[in-house]
Each structure stands twice: as structure tokens, then as C-alpha cells.
């Protein structure tokens, strides 16, 4: 029974192959027969196991699925003719009859339409400027690009990391176009992928000497912070209402508080009034150094290189490191005892 089924299907397949329209093909005619032969021999020789064969044969014959049938295009269409504007209800209805719902983007079925459109857009832009001269990566304008998380939030789409970086690779290549030849529309297109705030954006407001001739400077060190007002004068110095020698016991601290003035030989040209709080005396003295230097820079901006050489411009960011659990101090571990 099973054998009969199998051979019948094979014969029908062979019939189908033979009847297929192949005018010039002579060589392939041999092929189906060749593939037929061993199958036939197999059927004739092997002992049949009916259960297996019956279960297998229909499976092999069945397709995993059947594609949709071909479309039959009707001769008449579902369209209606516009009979000109009659009354308004009718025109309302006619407007409704012309409406259809379509995706807003060509990338609708990718489920990430905004991202896919962006990708296509930047690759088209790159193709348009691919032949322009470029600059080195090190010389390119510094840009803070959006991170993938920011981009995902912007588009509200589950963008894959790899795809995003592939797109950003193109955008970064756009950034390498020589600045003097960079077209304006590419600059605006790149803005979409930049962070809102860029590295050079935050410029501190320039400090000015006020109406009474004071320049203000703020400095910090360790946990102390100091505010200093600097006025042109004879070299008087007051810190929290006391003179330097009253306020600082150590000579070194007195010197470092006015080090900015001393290093530039301005000690007898400015009067200084400082308020300092927090921390110990070293911290307070060095917070004053920074504050005085900043105030001095307001009076004489040209002193900046000299002050930098004197080490008065940079804020020292070191602070006491916190103690951690399991440690004796910040990093010290308890002595290890064997058992």
C-alpha cells in the first residue's frame, strides 16, 4: 500500500517535470531520471515498515506552508466618480471615500521607522559629500555626540547598539569634511545627533572690577573655601578681620596665602580682604592662594602664564578619601591572621 503511494507520487513528479515547458534544455532531462533511479531501487529492495512510511510520506509531500494564491485583478474598480460639488453632506461623504490610512514613514515595517529614516538620510548625505577633502580625526571639531540611551529616548524606539554605532560612524565621517567646505545643511543635519550642550558652550561670564575698584575671586582647597576682594593699594591684608600674622601661626601659611601676589611682585600694589571658612589652616591658606590669584587675574589678565607657572591657577582636586567598610582606613586592610 505504502509502496504504491510513494511510487505514484514519484511518477507524478516525473510527469510534471516532463510536461514542464523546456524547449532548449536537453541536458537536464537526464537529471531527474538519474535522481529517480536510486529511489526506485531503494523502494524495491528495502523491507517496508508501513507505519513509518505512511507517517513519513505525507510529511515529505506537504509544504511547510502554502503561499497566498495569485491576485485576480477585477476588471471594474472600487472607485467612484466625482460628480462635482453638489451639497455639503455629499462632499463630506466623498471626502471620506477618498481617504485611506497609510504608514507615515517608508520604514514602517522595520518597527524602527525614525531610526531607519535617519540612517538612510545620513548615508545619502555622506554620498553627497564623499568626494570633499577631509581633515584628520585629531583635527576635527570636538563634538559631544548623543549616547545610544539619549538617542533611544529621543526616538522612543528599541534601537540596536550595533546599528546605532554603524549610523554614528557615518555621522562622524560627515564631521571630518573640511570645515571651509562643509555645506550648511550637513551642519544642521548633524545637530540632531549632538548632545544639547557641547564642550565649548559653557564659558564662564567674565569677572569685572566693580565701581569701588574691587575684584572678587573665589578659591577652594580640601574642605576650605575662600572669597577675596582685591583693591589697588599699599599691600594691606586682612583675613576674616585679622592680619595675616594674627590669622596664620605658621610662616609658610602666611606666605602661601599671598603667594600669587608675591610671585608676581604685586605684594605692595594691592590691598586684600579675604573671608575664609572650613577646613584647617593649610587648606584655608591654599584656598586663599587660588582666590587671590583669580582676583588678580581680573585686574591683570596678562599675568595668567606667570601665575600658572607659580602654580596658583589650578584648583587642587585632592580630598580626603573616605573610609570603606572592611578597611581600617580608606585603603588599609586589617592584618591578616592565618586561622
Amino acid at each position, binding site marked *: 500500500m505504502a509502496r504504491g503511494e510513494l511510487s505514484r507520487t514519484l511518477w507524478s513528479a516525473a510527469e510534471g517535470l516532463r510536461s514542464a515547458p523546456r524547449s532548449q*534544455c536537453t541536458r*537536464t532531462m537526464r537529471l531527474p531520471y538519474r535522481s529517480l533511479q536510486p529511489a526506485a531501487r531503494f523502494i524495491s529492495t528495502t523491507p517496508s515498515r508501513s507505519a513509518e512510511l505512511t507517517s513519513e510520506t505525507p510529511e515529505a509531500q506537504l509544504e511547510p506552508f502554502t503561499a*497566498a494564491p495569485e491576485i485576480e485583478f477585477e476588471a471594474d474598480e472600487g472607485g467612484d466618480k466625482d460628480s462635482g460639488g453638489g451639497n455639503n*453632506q455629499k462632499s463630506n461623504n466623498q471626502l471620506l471615500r477618498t481617504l485611506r490610512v*497609510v*504608514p507615515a514613514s517608508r520604514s514602517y515595517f522595520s518597527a524602527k521607522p525614525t531610526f531607519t529614516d535617519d540612517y538612510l538620510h545620513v548615508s545619502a548625505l555622506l554620498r553627497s559629500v564623499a568626494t570633499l577633502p577631509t581633515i584628520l580625526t585629531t583635527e576635527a571639531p570636538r563634538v559631544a555626540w548623543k549616547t545610544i540611551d539619549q538617542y533611544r529616548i529621543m526616538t522612543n524606539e528599541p534601537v540596536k547598539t550595533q546599528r546605532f554605532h554603524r549610523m554614528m560612524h557615518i555621522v562622524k565621517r560627515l564631521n571630518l569634511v573640511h570645515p571651509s567646505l562643509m555645506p550648511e545643511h550637513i551642519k544642521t543635519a548633524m545637530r540632531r545627533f549632538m548632545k544639547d550642550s557641547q564642550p565649548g558652550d559653557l564659558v564662564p561670564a567674565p569677572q569685572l572690577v566693580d565701581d569701588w575698584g574691587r575684584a572678587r575671586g573665589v578659591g577652594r582647597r580640601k574642605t576650605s573655601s575662600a572669597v577675596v576682594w582685591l583693591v589697588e593699594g599699599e599691600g594691606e591684608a586682612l583675613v576674616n578681620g585679622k592680619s595675616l600674622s594674627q590669622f596664620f601661626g605658621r610662616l609658610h601659611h602666611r606666605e602661601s596665602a599671598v603667594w600669587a601676589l608675591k610671585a608676581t611682585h604685586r605684594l605692595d600694589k594691592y590691598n586684600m580682604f579675604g573671608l575664609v571658612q572650613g577646613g584647617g589652616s593649610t587648606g584655608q591658606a591654599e584656598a586663599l592662594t587660588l582666590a587671590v590669584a583669580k582676583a588678580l587675574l581680573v585686574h591683570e589678565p596678562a599675568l595668567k602664564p606667570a601665575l600658572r607657572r607659580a602654580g596658583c591657577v589650578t584648583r587642587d582636586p585632592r580630598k580626603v578619601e573616605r573610609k570603606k567598610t572592611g578597611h581600617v582606613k580608606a585603603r588599609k586592610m586589617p592584618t591578616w591572621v592565618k586561622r
Partner: protein
Amino acid sequence: MIIRSVARAGRRALVQTSSQPWRRFLATQTDTIETTAENSFKQFHSLEAQFNATAPPQEAVPSFDPAAASAPASAHVTDSVAEQYHRFKQSQALIGKLGSYITPHYQPHTLLSNPPSPADVTLELLLASEAHQGHATSLWNPANARYIHGIRQGVHIISLEATAAHLRRAAKVVQEVSRRGGLVLFVGTRDGQDRAVARASELAKGYHLFERWIPGSITNGQQILSKCRTKVVNGKDEEIPGFEEQLMERPVLRPDLVVCMNPLENYVLLHECALNNIPTIGVIDTNADPTWVTYPIPANDDSLRCIQVIAGVLGRAGEAGQKQRLELAETGRVTYRPADNLVLPEALQEKTVAAAEPGAEMDLDESLEDADELADKLDMANNREMSNHAARAIKKID
């Protein structure tokens, strides 16, 4: 003075200057030397003028970027790069076309920038794009036997006649579907197929997919595509605003025709299309199963050039169909079935109702009847049994 200058110049001056002025000097008055000098000066000026006239206008070039020119730091360097580039472009425009005549040859970009239309499909084009190359004979799918011309060096050769015929038939299908406002989805998820697919969708005003098909986008579309925006358009493809709230509640869209460039990798997509009765067009290589798609195009799916040709042809067909549809829309005819259950928003309705006339009800009823009839007809057409359709469809299209 003259003698002194001559003496200073030495023998070289005597040799270099032409004999004409000297002869004249010897023959006539002494002051002629001044006039000759003047003459030569004039001559030099005229030469200069001539040179200026023939030389390319250099003054017109450099003022390309006033901002960069005014920039103080490193302005010199940037200026020179831009200038060099513009000069290069200028000379390229002037002399780029000169030289030997180059015979027509394959330029890869033309298949994307100016893809062939269905009328341009020739066996030469298909052969040149390697549409005939199949796979090794051991990899074949016997269902493709009817598309195979023969075997060469152990590789199946696809019959280009079959390819051309099936490609033209597919082009007709795409054209007709896009004429009726269907959503045609072009899919090519292999590396390098993205541009061909995007270009085809751009031409046909269809939709593209060149990354992975997310399984369930049709069968489970509400979960996957519900965030993607849709819009309401009229017959001329102009967006009509004011339907946003209704669109939120509508089911997601599904394509009306799927064109798949690599069916082997898109089994899930084709399966979903089959489950939802969406017809598919696919490029069937000798190792692919032609029953996965409704309209197979036997061709080499491993050649990007072949894929570009096929996608371009189908895109052009879609373009033609869209053009027909828009032309009909200009005359006030709609070729598609309008969206169901849409209600005109208040903003649009008030405008027209304000000047309502008596006798509107009659016409309204009439038009509603018309609409119902129309809808019934379309439903019948859509749901009709498909048993005898296949044979008739082939006849009609071919």
C-alpha cells in the same frame, strides 16, 4: 647715455635685441630710441591685457566662504584647501571630458540612480547582471527544474527566458497593486541589498525593510508596530490632519504585497504572509523553494547586481502604477477601497456643514447605499474562492 647702456649690457644686449631698432637708429635721428622703448612698452601692456583676457578669471574663485576668510587663526591654510578644491573642480569641468572616447561600459551606480524599467528587461541585461548563475547541482531544489536551462561546470544555469517572463509578470503585479493603492513592501535583508531596496521603495512609493524582519510583525502586529505612526491621506496622497485619535484605535497596517529579494533567509516573513493571505514575489535561486512565494522570479539572488536590476524593474513598475493612480485621482476617481469606519473630525466637518442646503438627506441616503453596495462587492471579490483564480490570473497577466 645710450652708448653707456649698450656698453653696460655688453655683447649679450647686442645679440638679443632685434636688429630693427638699431638699423633705424643708425639711419635716422637719435631720439627714435625713445619711441621704440615706448612702443615696446605699449606692446608689453597689450600682451599683458591679452594674457589677462585669456587666463581663467581667478578673482571670481576665492570668495566662497567669507566666514572662513575672516577667521584670523589658521585662515590661511583653510583658504588654500578650499581654493585648491574649487580650482580642481573647475579644471575638472573644463578638461574632464577631453581625451579618448570611452565605449559604453558598466557603471555600477547607474542601476541605482537610473534603474531599468520593465520595458528595458532584455536577456542581455539579465545575462550581464549574472541572473543566470544558480547553485551547485547538489544543492538544487527539484521544484526549480522547469526554470533551469542546463548545467555548466557543476552549476545549474537558470533559463533567462523564464527569468525575463517571470520578472515582467511580477512587474505587472507590482504595477497593478500600486495602481490600486496597495502597500508594497520591498524586503532585502542581505548585506548590500539595502540601497537597492530603499531605492525601489522610493520609486514605487512603497515600503522597505533591509534589516531583520521582526517575527510577528504581521501575525502579532499590534504588539510590534503599534508605536509606528500612520496617517490619513486623500486620493492625491496629501495628508489630512485631525484623525490622530481615530488612528490610535485602529489596527496596525499590513502590506498588500511583499517583494522578497532573499526568500531563503526570510522564511518567517513568507510564512506570515501565507498565513494572512498576502501575496508575495520572491527571487528564487536554484536552491530555494518556489512554493514559498506566490510569484517566483527565478534568478540569482547572490548577485547584488542582479538584485539591483530586479528591484529597479519592480520599483519602476510601482512608479508607473502610482503615476496612473495619481492621474486618475486628478480626475476625481479613486482606485482603492477607502478606509472603513473613519469619521470626519469636527474641524473638517464644520467647514462644509455651515453652508448646508435642503434636500441633503436624500442624496446622503443614496450615497450611503452606494457605499454599502460598493463595500459588499469588494468583500465578495476579496473573499471569493481561489480555486479557479490561479489559472485565469496567469492568462490575464501574461
